[in-house]
């Protein structure tokens, strides 16, 4: 080939060679300039359509005049050999420059801006690179970046046309897709067409490699690399990589194209923003060597944007959490998440007390159970080094799960409670910095005789009496209802009238399997209870319970929720039986009483009435405080239903979620939602034999913390 003339270029010397082509240095004898000529090997599997494609792509790419794009001057064929004449770029590949240690962050940013700019030009012209990698990015001695081989990596007859630099191995056997495996986006691996966002993925990989000298998705075999691309999250890049650059890389390598930047110009702008900050304030980058992060920022996750007066629904599932946003109309919903991939989220709460806008979530996985919070509607979450809720060493007990997060009194926005498994109650008085076990309940003489149910031995319900800060109720499976009148120092079982069909004695003092308790702040002496078997009401703070299962198809069920303005109106979702914990006859029906349980009516308009073998778990139902009242519930099959007219009509808001464990809702900046209803309680009825210590309002005006 040396000495031959291709078009008007005389081949001078060989520069490099790879699986599909050889690159030569040549001299353009008409325009008198040095050029590079890539000649596709004769044995490359190029059929005629592949050849046409390649020529078309090369011609299109030749229109890309950009300082950071290696210009294509000419394409042609000679004696059946396909060749491409291009700008001769002399310099080093970014792959070689990155080496094993990576480049200084300022350099990465400088090069990154140029690469993004090149991609932006090509994408504007409808050209996708398809094989962006450090090996085909060359940096000249002057620091000018040149991206090679635009549009040339199109699949040709089952083979891959490699870049002229050929300095990085293309993984063998990846013949059904074009590109180089470690840089390939998940959608390309799945066989979808590459688009501009696939190039942005590759740009993220390039930036990661340039900054660290390592590939973000590695492996010894093609299979391992593919698995990492599809599923793994790259190891974080700490100092000296500034958090801003790391954030950009993370967004580029989001698994779903929709979650990435959508345009190269966005990446360019983001890199320039970090660049200006990084150059002006090199020390400003967060010093991560000082200690592992206390907060995890969720970059690759879709977030909802919350405005004042927006309405949010929090959904905890057995594989993560979701945040839904709507307005007071509650017709259209944006969905954020999933947060905490693969973790069970049994409990969530929204805390709008004082000036807080905080979401709480408990997460549970092989790595333990954590209580976490977010002050920015899910964009970042605390990720404490030490589990905040933990049993003291002397108890010999370890935390299995957090089933309930309950806000303390409205007057004390730093006080919260957690109900956990094994059954115990924890309290914080400093907004979650420190949690302490409430010994009064833990040391109760009944505790050794409480029995774990199917879901474990859990304290899953905490109910505060808004009229009396010293009074509180808890529900334990299987232990029953317990009440304190002294702020948690002592507790009494309150189960008179509640059956325990699984016990030899049908009305024991304790041991009942309570599923949920509801209280109305306007009538705090009244409680409703959904038991393992049995629907009950108490009108005397749990001293006595009356069976109110009058007209429900079954008295077995899990949730019970109360209308925020009508203390006689209660909702429940009966299931068929202990053995078959699905709604009766495969018909999904919510039952409502408007007379405190004297009678119940089914609500089903809009709910599936055929083969809907659904279960609604104890915390998977909630009401809002709007007018008309909204009711929301999630099912074990991952469907979220809602009604914005008090249950008359229902809509499926979302389907296809993992099993729904909890549902909560709140109006943002509508102070004090969550467990505290915006209703001023009336005077309370005195508990027999107890003094009624204090009466407090449930409302509080924006007290600053």
């Amino acid at each position: 080939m040396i000495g031959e003339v291709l078009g008007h270029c005389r081949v001078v010397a060989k520069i490099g060679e790879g699986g599909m082509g050889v690159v030569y240095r040549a001299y353009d004898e008409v325009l008198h300039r040095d050029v590079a000529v890539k000649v596709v090997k004769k044995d490359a599997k190029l059929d005629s359509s592949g050849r046409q494609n390649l020529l078309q792509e090369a011609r299109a790419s030749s229109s890309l005049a950009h300082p950071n794009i290696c210009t294509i001057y000419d394409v042609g064929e000679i004696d059946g050999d396909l060749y491409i004449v291009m700008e001769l770029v002399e310099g080093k590949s970014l792959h070689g420059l990155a080496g094993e240690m990576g480049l200084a962050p300022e350099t990465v940013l400088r090069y990154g801006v140029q690469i993004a700019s090149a991609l932006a030009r090509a994408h504007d012209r409808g050209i996708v690179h398809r094989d962006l990698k450090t090996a085909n990015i060359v940096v000249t001695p002057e620091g000018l970046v040149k991206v090679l081989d635009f549009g040339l990596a199109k699949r040709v007859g089952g083979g891959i046309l490699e870049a002229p630099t050929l300095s990085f191995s293309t993984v063998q056997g990846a013949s059904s897709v074009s590109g180089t495996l470690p840089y390939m986006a998940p959608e390309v691996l799945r066989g979808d067409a590459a688009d501009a966002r696939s190039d942005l993925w590759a740009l993220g990989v390039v930036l990661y490699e340039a900054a660290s000298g390592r590939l973000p998705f590695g492996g010894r075999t093609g299979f391992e690399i593919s698995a990492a691309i599809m599923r793994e999250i790259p190891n974080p890049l700490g100092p000296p990589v500034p958090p801003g650059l790391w954030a950009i890389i993370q967004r580029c390598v989001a698994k779903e194209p929709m979650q990435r930047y959508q345009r190269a110009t966005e990446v360019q702008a983001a890199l320039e923003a970090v660049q200006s900050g990084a150059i002006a304030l090199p020390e400003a980058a967060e010093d991560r060597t000082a200690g592992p992060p206390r907060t995890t920022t969720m970059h690759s996750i879709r977030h909802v944007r919350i405005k004042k007066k927006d309405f949010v629904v929090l959904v905890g599932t057995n594989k993560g959490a979701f945040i839904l946003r709507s307005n007071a109309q509650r017709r259209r919903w944006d969905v954020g998440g999933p947060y905490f991939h693969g973790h069970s989220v049994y409990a969530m709460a929204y805390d709008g007390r004082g000036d807080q806008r905080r979401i709480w979530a408990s997460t549970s996985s092989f790595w333990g159970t954590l209580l976490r919070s977010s002050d920015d509607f899910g964009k970042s979450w605390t990720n404490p080094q030490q589990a905040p809720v933990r049993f003291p060493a002397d108890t010999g007990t370890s935390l299995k799960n957090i089933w309930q997060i309950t806000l303390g009194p409205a007057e004390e926005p730093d006080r919260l409670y957690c109900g956990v498994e094994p059954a115990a109650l924890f309290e914080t008085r400093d907004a979650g910095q420190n949690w302490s076990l409430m010994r009064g309940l833990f040391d109760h003489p009944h505790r050794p005789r409480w029995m774990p149910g199917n879901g474990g031995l859990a304290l899953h319900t905490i109910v505060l009496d808004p009229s009396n800060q010293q009074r509180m109720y808890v529900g334990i499976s299987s232990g029953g209802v317990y009440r304190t009148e002294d702020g948690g120092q002592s507790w009494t079982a309150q189960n008179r009238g509640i059956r325990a069909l699984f016990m030899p004695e049908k009305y024991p003092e304790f041991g009942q399997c309570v599923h949920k308790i509801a209280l109305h702040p306007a009538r705090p002496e009244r409680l409703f209870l959904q038991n393992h078997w049995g629907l009950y009401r108490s009108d005397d703070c749990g001293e006595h319970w009356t069976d109110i299962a009058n007209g429900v198809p079954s008295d077995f069920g899990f949730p019970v929720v109360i209308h925020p303005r009508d203390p006689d109106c209660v909702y429940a979702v009966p299931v068929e039986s202990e053995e078959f914990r699905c709604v009766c006859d495969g018909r999904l029906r919510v039952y409502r009483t408007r007379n405190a349980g004297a009678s119940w009516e089914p609500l089903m308009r809009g709910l599936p009435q055929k083969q809907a073998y659904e279960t609604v778990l104890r915390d998977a139902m909630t009401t809002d405080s709007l007018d008309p009242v909204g009711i929301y519930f999630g099912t074990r099959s991952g469907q979220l239903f809602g009604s914005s007219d008090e249950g008359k009509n229902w809509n499926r808001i979302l389907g296809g979620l993992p099993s729904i464990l909890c549902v909560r809702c709140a109006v943002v900046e509508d102070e004090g939602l969550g467990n505290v209803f915006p209703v001023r309680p009336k005077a309370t009825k005195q508990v027999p034999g107890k003094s009624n210590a204090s009466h407090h309002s449930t409302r509080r005006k924006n007290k600053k913390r």
Partner: protein
Amino acid sequence: MKVTIYIPAALREFTNGRSEVSVEPSGATVGEALSALWNAYPGVRDRVLNEQDQVRQHINIFVGNENIRYTGGLTTRLPKNSQISIVPAVSGGQ
């Protein structure tokens, strides 16, 4: 004595991204090597052990290829140049 501890991907946010950490423990048991790891990277501890200092149910710790559940737990003695791996169990059904 130098001990290499392999960190699973899920915990690397607490080790500044490191997939392996070398420690020089004060003694020659797995527990002492892990204590040295907690000292350097405190966030890892509560993910591996519960508050009663027991290895979490679904987490396995290997010395070489041996699961310490069968060799004395955290008191397992370490041979020279040991390699410890922290590995979440394979399980399913949920």
